[in-house]
């Protein structure tokens, strides 16, 4: 398949692996921000191709993982109502709330539907005028334009029984928080290619300068990731720091201007809680006043949310790259994809689930041929 096969090619991967080994002279800690990249790293066991000196730290860029617990509990409360059709992308459905997840609400008779696009949720709202249709609008800058579009469309078409439960989060404030942390050990970043497809990478330049740290905008295929790592290591070894764009076949410096315009129209920045991490100032988007009629949190007066996190789960430390999933005492025993204690065990892009499925450090080690 064009644009895929060449980025999964064993010869190219081997060459890059050798180049990385050649230029690496000392230990480096590199964080891949995005859960999609974590997934590729574990799925292709990319660490097998890296020198021992390089440690990959898995970042907080799993939208499912960082959605705050109280919002999931709110979603569950709203989805349990008889007058609601609750719509969501697939992988939010299994994220554990304090007591339940959305799939259990469905099993108990709640009207929970998996959709592939928020515009489909608007369509469902049009077809069901006697129901309130809510879409669970979570995610980073990547998913935000489609969610914004659904609100604009509903507004234009006068679909007043549609709303979104909004928990958008933004990458640059999270990077800043990680780098300001006294526990920080990250020396270089692979920035998330798809986030930058929307937003461009101008907003990362101040971070590079302030923290003197290399950031390479990187794609999601194994060869992309090896190339991104190569570019970061090259800078680190030369004691340089700059923004580079490995994913130039998709990402432009200025991003997608039309999408950014739409986002400006619909959303404004706000403080946002990240599950496991806490509140990060100006790290999220909420609906602007003009569209507040589509804000599910305002439409449904959900109170008495008493959240209860599992006492075993160290998701916060994993999302900040302080610990790896296998260092958690619940990993693989108390916490599995069937019984997730925390969100990173749910999504394919969550670090814990990726560790569990792709077995880098599974319960049993495997022998290479």
């Amino acid at each position, binding site marked *: *398949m064009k644009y*895929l096969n060449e980025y*999964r*090619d*064993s010869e190219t*991967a*081997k060459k890059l692996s050798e180049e990385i080994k050649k230029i690496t002279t000392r230990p480096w800690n590199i964080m891949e921000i995005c859960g*999609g990249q974590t997934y590729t790293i*574990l*799925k*292709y*066991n*990319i660490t*097998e*191709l890296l020198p021992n000196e390089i440690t990959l730290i898995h970042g907080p860029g799993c*939208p*499912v993982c960082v959605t705050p617990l109280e919002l999931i509990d709110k979603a569950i409360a709203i989805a349990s109502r008889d007058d609601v059709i609750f719509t969501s*992308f*697939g*992988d*939010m*459905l*299994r994220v554990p709330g304090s007591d339940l997840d959305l*799939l*259990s609400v*469905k*099993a*108990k008779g709640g009207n929970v*539907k*998996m*959709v*592939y696009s928020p515009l*489909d949720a608007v369509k469902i709202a049009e077809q069901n005028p006697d129901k309130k249709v809510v879409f669970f609008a*979570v*995610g*980073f800058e*990547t*998913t935000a334009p489609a969610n914004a579009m659904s609100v604009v469309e509903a507004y234009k078409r006068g679909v007043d029984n549609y709303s979104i439960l909004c928990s958008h989060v933004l990458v640059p404030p999270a990077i800043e928080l990680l780098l300001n942390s006294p526990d920080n050990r990250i020396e270089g970043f692979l920035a998330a290619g*798809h986030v930058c497809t929307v937003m461009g990478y101008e907003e990362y330049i101040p971070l590079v300068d302030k923290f003197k740290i290399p950031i390479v905008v990187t794609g999601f295929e*194994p*060869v992309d990731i090896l190339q991104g790592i190569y570019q970061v290591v090259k800078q680190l070894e030369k004691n340089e720091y700059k923004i580079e764009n490995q994913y130039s076949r998709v990402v432009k410096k200025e991003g997608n201007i039309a999408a950014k315009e739409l986002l400006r129209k619909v959303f404004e920045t706000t403080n946002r809680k990240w599950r496991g991490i806490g509140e990060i100032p100006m790290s999220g988007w909420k609906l602007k006043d003009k569209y507040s009629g589509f804000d599910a949190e305002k439409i449904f007066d959900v109170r008495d949310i008493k959240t209860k996190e599992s006492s075993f789960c160290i998701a916060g430390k994993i999302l900040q790259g302080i610990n790896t999933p296998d260092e958690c005492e619940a990993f693989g025993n108390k916490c*599995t*994809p*069937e*019984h997730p204690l925390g969100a990173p065990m749910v*999504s*394919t*892009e969550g670090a814990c689930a990726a560790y*569990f*499925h*792709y*077995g880098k450090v*599974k319960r*049993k080690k*495997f*022998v*290479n*041929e």
Partner: protein
Amino acid sequence: MSKNEINISTGLNCPIPKSDYENVLLAHGGGGTLTHQLLDKMFFPNFSNDILNVHHDSAILNINNSRIAFTTDSYVVNPIFFPGGNIGDLAVYGTINDLAVAGAKPLYISVSFIIEEGLPMDDLWQIVLSIKSASIRAGVQIVTGDTKVVDKGKGDKIFINTSGIGLISEGINISPQNCKPGDLILLNGSIAEHGITIMSSREGLEFDTEIKSDTAPLNSLIAEMLDTSKNIHVMRDPTRGGIASTLNEIASSSNLGIQIYEDKIPIEEEVLGACEILGLDPLYIANEGKLLAFVDKNDAQKVLDAMRKNEFGKRSQIIGEVTENNPGTVVMKTSIGSNRIVDMISGEQLPRIC
């Protein structure tokens, strides 16, 4: 109650802790670890006997010196009509394939319908005609059946159950426990087509594809394979849960390792494209006309040649081998040359957010 305290032999307490699952979830029927939890904790211990405990696709019965394979399966596919087939031929071929992979020649099947009130008579007619032509094509007779109609809203158009029996010839011994280190693993063509067809025909997923379900009767292909070699140790049809789940089941029941090679597994471009868009792994997606055969390495090439001559085996490939390393585990050499574990899926695969 912790899992360790459960005494499954009593059969009185629900062995799946209620705190975990108060209700049955869709994933309990997904063919992954939750399905296995139901089987291992509820069904097998309560129904235990020597025949069931083999955990084969068909039960093997010894009656008057004849070995008879017996199997049953229910079909609840939605939509009931899809590119490449419908619930009718699917129900016939599914049961026939379960008999054939046990090494049996399928002979007789039953067909039972649970129909929802309001199903268009014309739809039922189409389904019945498909069942008829599928049974003729596969060379089996429909010898008994049942019809029930439920209130509107209490079913989903139509559910079909088929059971079947077949005869196993002398000298044929196929069982999940027979796999041996060094066996090569053969696959009869490209994977994931049925699952992707069904997903792309469902409401809400509007992309046009040319992908068709691979629904097919495998008994003629299997008969030709068995004529070619007496050293076919295991055969399975990787339906629900895809080839990953089937390979894991065999690795775990034989306590041997399985090594497969990503670049040897045939997948159609369009299927791969759909998987990329949805964030699904084709190894876990259902097939309805595929089989995995574990063959002694000295016979593998001639079995492969025989398979490629059959209409349902043209794209057959040797995709891996059985190893003594990594017992109970499936390891795949990826396209970039690294190795990774292919795990049993835990629930249903859910399309990702971005």
